């Protein structure tokens, strides 16, 4: 290459301008020419083929990084020590090195394959989560509203007046308040610690927690009635069936369950499209309660614009 001539403009300014042009041109070409991305993927794949897991840019997840590190067994024993000991260690290492290398290579190969497999599973899981998009969509719709007065009175009317009642999710306690007001033992649980605050300030027994976990850990027979509201709208059929198992165990053969839910058919298009779970119609809840051994009925509610039916199941 011959020695070039000096540029007409200031050297630093010229370099900066060329650099900006190169980056802009590369970005434009990358957008317009899918062939570039295909070639780069091919090159990247060729590197992944020869590199160990974690070396091709997919590192980042702490757990997987640790798995990478732990998956490698180093056959080279450290020899830093006093001269005499170093010689002894060196002799031992030379004598056993060939066999250790053979064994270690196989263990390393197995570990690497396992880590690669875990990484691929992690990628698949990320893909599934992205496709379902549960977390991302929650912010786009309003949370399930607190049931109105008419619903609360209808629930209180079908709940037995003795024993202890559980309400989940409780929100600010609209469903808890009428039962509490008649002097009966009742407590509510909600995942959102902020949502329960107004009810707590009003003297209701509302607790922050997962309603499903609370039910699962309830002492059998400790409850006479269970009211399920809000969170049940996001559950899929399998989760509902598991929940009914927990409800049955908590009631221990005797008691009432009340399901407060909107009918998916009545939801507006936005909520229908974006809500994480499809939800079950009251008629389906009644069907499932029957299958779980409850005597089920639907009870009409007047005066609420979202909920026109509650489902009541009785055991014993």
């Amino acid at each position, binding site marked *: 290459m011959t020695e070039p001539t000096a*540029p007409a403009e200031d050297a630093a300014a010229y370099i900066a301008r060329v*650099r900006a042009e190169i*980056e802009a041109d590369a970005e434009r070409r990358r957008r317009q020419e899918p062939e570039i991305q295909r070639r780069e993927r091919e090159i990247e794949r060729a*590197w992944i083929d020869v590199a160990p897991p974690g*070396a091709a840019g997919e590192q980042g997840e702490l757990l997987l990084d640790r798995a990478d590190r732990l998956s490698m067994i*180093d056959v080279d024993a450290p020899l830093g020590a006093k001269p005499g000991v170093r010689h002894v260690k060196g002799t031992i290492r030379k004598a056993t090195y060939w066999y250790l290398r053979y064994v270690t290579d196989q263990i390393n190969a197995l570990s690497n394959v396992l880590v690669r497999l875990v990484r691929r599973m992690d990628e698949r899981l990320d893909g599934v989560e992205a496709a379902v998009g549960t977390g991302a969509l929650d912010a786009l719709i309003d949370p399930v509203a607190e049931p109105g007065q008419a619903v609360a009175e209808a629930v209180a009317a079908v709940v037995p007046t003795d024993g202890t009642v559980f309400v989940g999710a409780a929100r600010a306690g609209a469903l808890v308040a009428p039962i509490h007001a008649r002097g009966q033992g009742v407590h509510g649980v909600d995942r959102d610690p902020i949502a329960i605050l107004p009810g707590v300030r009003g003297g209701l027994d509302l607790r922050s927690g997962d309603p499903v976990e609370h039910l699962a850990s309830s002492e059998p027979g400790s409850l006479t009635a269970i009211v399920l509201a809000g969170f049940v709208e996001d559950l899929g059929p399998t989760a509902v069936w598991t929940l009914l198992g927990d409800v049955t165990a908590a009631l221990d053969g005797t008691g009432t369950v009340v399901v407060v839910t909107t009918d998916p058919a009545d939801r507006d298009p936005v909520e229908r499209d974006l809500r994480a779970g499809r939800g079950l119609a009251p008629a389906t809840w009644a069907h499932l309660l029957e299958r779980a051994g409850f005597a089920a009925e639907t009870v009409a509610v007047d005066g609420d614009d979202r909920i026109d039916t509650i489902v009541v199941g009785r055991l014993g």
Partner: protein
Amino acid sequence: MRVHHFTATLSPRDAVGYHTLAVDDLLRDMGHDTTLYAQSIHPDLASRARDYRDHAGDPAADVLLYQASTGSPVADHLLGRPEPLVLDYHNLTPAEAFDPWEPHIGAELDAGRRQLARLARRAVAAVADSQFNADELIALGLDDVRVAPVLFDPPDPPDRAAGGPPTLLFVGRLAPNKRQQDLIAALAELRRHRPEARLTLIGAPSSARYEDALRAFAESVAPGAVEFAGSVPYADLVASYGTADVFVCLSEHEGFCVPVIEAMGAGLPVVARAAAVLPETVGDAGLLLSDPGPSEVAAAIDQVLDDPHLRAAMAERGRIRAATFAPERAAQIMRRALGSILEALA
């Protein structure tokens, strides 16, 4: 003032080794009484330094100076000493770069970084090669950090050779943080338009596993076009700056990067990733690319090869930039930095 000067490894061909000896000479020149200690001493330098374990019973020092560039038992020794401690910091490679390749090196680097945090708490002041390195120490809680470049002996500019295929050059150990695989990927992309283009990689491997992968990768995407020159004699290194057309550095982590300065001093255009210290070292003399893919790097190299004005501009700015790291100037800055620290401790 009596200065006991420590380093992990003292080797004549190593950048930190050369710097350590130059700083030692500088301290003597400044009138200080210095003794150099190291954990590992190259036989050629046996008369210049003592084993650091011999220091255990010597309380004569007024100040300890430590060349911090890796995890080392020397640092543990210094952490247990009562004398004032001054650091000369050359940065540590992030462990993550080595974890997939050489986990034991990754573990050592992890330990080195934990050691550095303790050293930073223990030290009274520090000198760092670059602002990038200084910022790390400041983030670890050390307030008094001066910036002074590495002391090194730049080669005389080689004669620029004309003709031959377009040759890319990188000088540095084969190490995952230096991302030689990105250089090979860029070469593969460049060879679509310039099938005769070649890449020369000068530097000994830090990891045999990484070197094996690089060789296999090169054979897969740019067969026969990558020369793994290994560690070469100094004369060959200097000559390589004269025969190459572009110096390309895509390292994700560098603490200073002497080869970039050598390349700029030789009038070789520099294309580099805008990462770690490289924007600071290269300045306005090279094409710095933000997070580039192979096609961006290839486009930049293509432009340098095609545009004589650009090459002239880069050579001009490169020589000016390299001159700011010239030995006399660097020694002057180091003299000022160490002088003011030691004066304050006197």
